[in-house]
């Protein structure tokens, strides 16, 4: 069963500069492979492609590698683009 939900995309650091957006709502089919979620993000913001291979996502504030695993989303869930960290 595939359903649709409205989740919140959050962009940080270089990804925010590339998209020029901090947060936006999108409708996404769920469950969705994290790879497909990334593809969807690239379609919205092609400039994100410079991060390809050096980026992961966070879904409901849990890190999710971009790959084969399925992500289950609900309305209002946060999906964040996480460029390489540089805290400290």
């Amino acid at each position: 069963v595939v359903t649709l939900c409205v989740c919140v995309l959050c962009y940080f650091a270089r990804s925010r500069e590339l998209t020029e957006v901090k947060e936006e709502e999108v409708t996404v089919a769920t469950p969705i492979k994290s790879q497909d979620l990334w593809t969807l993000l690239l379609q919205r913001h092609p400039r994100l492609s410079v991060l390809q291979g050096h980026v992961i996502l966070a879904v409901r504030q849990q890190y999710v590698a971009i790959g084969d695993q399925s992500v289950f989303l609900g309305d209002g869930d946060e999906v964040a683009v996480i460029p390489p960290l540089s805290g400290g």
Partner: protein
Amino acid sequence: MSQEVGDLFSLKHDWLSVQEVVDAVTLPSCGAISVFIGTTREDEVEGRKVIGLEYEAYESMVQSEFSKLCCDIRARCPTVAKICVHHRLGSVKVAEASVVMAISSPHRKDSEQAIQLGMKLLKANIPIWKKEVYHTQEVSWKENAECEWAELSH
């Protein structure tokens, strides 16, 4: 075992007080406090002089990742008492502290081991980013070698 009462990760827009972070982990039962202070180093990158750093964070997620970090430290160093981190946000000038971490334990070796692990985990997992600001007004996002998905990770 999770984040204990008293563990604290605080994001600050102003000067960091080392004493405040140390006081937050001081306990009569602990004879050892290890501290790490990270400061903005004076640096020159390809002829451009670094004049400061700009920090940002995924603030709500910082807290949940810090809980995991505290768990991981206690799994490896069970005698650790308290863990406290103050981390700057916004712009930080050269020679100012951007992070202060303090960890207390009854004996020295445990706090020493824990502080090394703690800083490694912070750099690997806490969702905070910095860019260097150069005297030319150019900027460049940094990447921690400890971050698994960094270009330069090892």
